[in-house]
């Protein structure tokens, strides 16, 4: 009997001892190594691979230079394998719920300034930006290095700046020159009516005219921005209370409440009727493709650039980031052209205001967009660490450095934003740049402005509408329900009483 008791005690002690290290690690009771450097965890731009990939060579070099000059700081770059900002935000919010978000997270201005991201997840970095960039001799403030138009994109309605923006993209329609020639199209369309006529000519000539790739958000959201900003341009003052470059969640919620952003408003409904006109020219496999997905994607959504370069469609919507990619395809450089998105004029609809929308879709959405997470989202973040993170960002955003790593990474497809940053000026890019003031961008459902759930549901509705599963009337009914519920959800999440507007 004593022998059994002794053995039992030994077994019990062994099992408890096995559990102890796991408990200790789990509760953080294991002491950290003494004198460890500050480790900055930063998320890389999407679709660039790890820090050692060729796309990140410039960033890697600058990081090493910084670490050499600051031996107590180490930067750990995390690959960004997300396929959209929706997915990226879901990732960072999941991490933040456990206090384990990285220090620097990839973001886009839309969700950050709209109120879609939970309050308190990102820090207000304006105090740092109002001080001089320590790596730029003679500057009065870091903010002064940014054009005023870009600062408007960075600023939230309450005046905070929760995101820093590094580069801009521009967008347009990429077309196959040979297909245009065979279809008898001698010049690129400047208006929507001309665009529709050209699509008809291409179809008559036996070509697949166009792909509205709605396997992801890029095509649907560009169309929503273009058409809504154009057709509602004269009604924006009725619901725009923040007067930002891009309408925020509050602006949209007010617009929905007032019935301006509503399918009962014929001006807004016209946006979706115009989209329906594209159905007859759309590539039948469109739901498998996305305009912004990685070129190396092997599961849907696949990259729609391939449809153009392989001659399967005559026109694809895309961005300046396409230019280096298409030029690198053997034999394809020079065989494609690009023109800005056509203007919606009265030749298309009586609701047209002839608004020039060049620059509405693009903007400071390129690489180099980061937010700094708060202490609640990242338990390793402290005021001291924030200062170190911002110092590292200041190094990356020294104009010469910014231009260097953006140009090295994107080969001219993205335009470094800061004044004095070198720009590559690719052929074809200049035609996409805005020539005047960019009108207020009305961004509603498909860019995470209201809620991510609304964006997800909205994309599904657009897919069903474009593949013919939904008639216009059914689509209109469901879209209206979506607008109403999304506005209510936004207001509840942001504790806003819409009745006072």
């Amino acid at each position: 009997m004593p022998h059994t008791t002794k053995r039992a005690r030994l077994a019990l002690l062994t099992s408890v001892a096995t559990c102890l290290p796991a408990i200790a690690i789990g509760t953080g009771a294991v002491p950290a190594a003494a004198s460890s450097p500050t480790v900055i965890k930063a998320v890389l731009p999407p679709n660039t691979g790890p820090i050692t990939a060729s796309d990140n060579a410039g960033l890697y070099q600058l990081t090493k230079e910084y670490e050499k000059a600051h031996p107590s700081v180490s930067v750990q770059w995390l690959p960004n394998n997300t396929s959209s900002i929706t997915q990226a935000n879901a990732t960072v919010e999941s991490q933040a719920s456990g206090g384990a978000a990285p220090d620097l997270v990839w973001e886009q201005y839309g969700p950050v300034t709209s109120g879609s991201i939970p309050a308190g997840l990102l820090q207000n970095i304006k105090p740092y930006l109002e001080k001089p960039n320590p790596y730029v001799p003679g500057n009065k403030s870091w903010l002064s290095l940014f054009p005023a138009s870009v600062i408007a994109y960075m600023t939230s309605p309450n005046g905070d700046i929760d995101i820093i923006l590094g580069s801009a993209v521009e967008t347009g329609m990429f077309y196959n020159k040979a297909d245009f020639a065979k279809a008898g199209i001698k010049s690129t369309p400047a208006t929507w009516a001309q665009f529709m006529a050209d699509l008809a000519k291409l179809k008559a000539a036996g070509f697949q005219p166009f792909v509205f790739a709605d396997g992801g958000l890029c095509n649907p959201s560009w169309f929503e921005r273009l058409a809504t900003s154009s057709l509602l341009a004269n009604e924006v003052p009725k619901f725009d209370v923040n007067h930002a470059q891009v309408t925020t969640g509050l602006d949209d919620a007010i617009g929905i409440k007032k019935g301006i952003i509503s399918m009962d408003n014929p001006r807004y409904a016209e946006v979706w009727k115009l989209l329906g006109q594209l159905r007859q020219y759309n590539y039948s496999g469109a739901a498998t493709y996305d305009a912004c997905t990685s070129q190396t994607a092997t599961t849907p959504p696949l990259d729609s650039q391939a449809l153009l370069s392989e001659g399967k469609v005559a026109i694809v919507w895309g961005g300046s980031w396409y230019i280096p990619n298409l030029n690198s395809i053997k034999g394809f450089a020079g065989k494609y052209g690009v023109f800005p998105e056509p203007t919606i004029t009265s030749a298309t609809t009586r609701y047209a205001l002839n608004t020039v929308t060049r620059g509405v879709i693009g903007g400071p959405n390129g690489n180099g967009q980061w937010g700094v997470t708060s202490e609640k989202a990242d338990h390793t973040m402290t005021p001291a660490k924030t200062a170190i993170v911002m110092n590292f960002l200041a190094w990356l955003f020294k104009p010469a450095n910014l231009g260097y790593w953006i140009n090295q990474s994107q080969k001219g497809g993205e335009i470094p934003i800061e004044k004095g940053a070198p720009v590559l000026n690719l052929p074809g890019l200049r035609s996409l740049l805005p020539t005047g003031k960019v009108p207020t961008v009305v961004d509603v459902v498909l860019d995470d402005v209201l809620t991510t759930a609304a964006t997800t549901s909205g994309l599904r509705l657009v897919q069903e509408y474009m593949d013919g599963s939904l008639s216009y009337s059914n689509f209109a009914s469901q879209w209206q329900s979506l607008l109403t519920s999304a506005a209510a959800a936004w207001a509840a999440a942001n504790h806003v009483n819409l009745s006072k507007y």
Partner: protein
Amino acid sequence: MLYLMTNHPSRSTALVGREREQKRLASVSPRMAGVPRGSSGGRSAGLWQGRGRWRPALGALLLPSLLLIGVFTYYPAVRSLIGGFYAWNGFSPPTYVGLAQFNQYIHSPTFGPEVVHLVILVAGSIATTLVSQFTAAEVVTHLPSRVGRIVKYVLVLPIVFPPLVLIEVWDYLLEPNGLIDRIAVNVGLPHPSWLSNPHTALIGILLIGFPWISNLGFLIFLGGLQNLPKEIMDAARVDGTGALQRTFRIDVPLLFPQFRVVVILSGIYAVQNFVPILLLTNGGPGTATLVPGLDMYQSAFQNDQYGYGMAIGTLLFATMLVFTVVAMRALRPRTH
């Protein structure tokens, strides 16, 4: 004649033989013979000794496993059941909302299509599993031993491949102008864009894994068939029973326990396995392949509606519980 075989003397002979074997083993090692605890046969192998005493050594060794299962399996499940009653975005404090999220899901515009798709996928999965895997097991069982062994290995080997490999292969086959479409064009058959056509997307999902043999069900049926009483098979052969008659009159009734297990496992797997849909269609085009499992995942991890996602999960759990109970009762073994 065939039904009387269940009371055939040769079966009684087998039972007598088994009892003799038990007695022989008992004389060597009571534990091997399964002698009950506390009998004059010797020490118990279980946790409890006689007279209410337990074996602390075994209990202590079980402790880490129980802790891990409790923390990583039961706690998340219970937490999820409770979480459906709270609205939570994963970051801000949760808010109690009662049954609101359950109602929201049931009344959502996608609930009906999701249920329909789920029923189609579960029914299709069970049907393909039962037919293809049972048929394959039947064929392999009655092949000459060497050939049967080789065929068995060839059919079982794909089980070890990562599921993602299978999904990638089928994406290549089903994508617009994929291999299947190119073959169809060359022979003059229709070539739908399988995964981007709302009418064929769900069929495309069901096609994944064709001919649906390399799976656990095949092994379950194979094991069952190979352990059928030899006397019955011999008697059937002597009686001149054909292969089809033997299959439906003897094999299927005797394998009812296996059928029940396979039906339940296939159904549960079909409900839980939304990964192919996530990777190939993301529930689209539109809602053509949207299922509750994917809605649950996207609500929680994409839309930051964790409470809503947990509510969907709770409803799914309840549904599968009912399905399991019904299947257990409906597919009770018909022979003794």
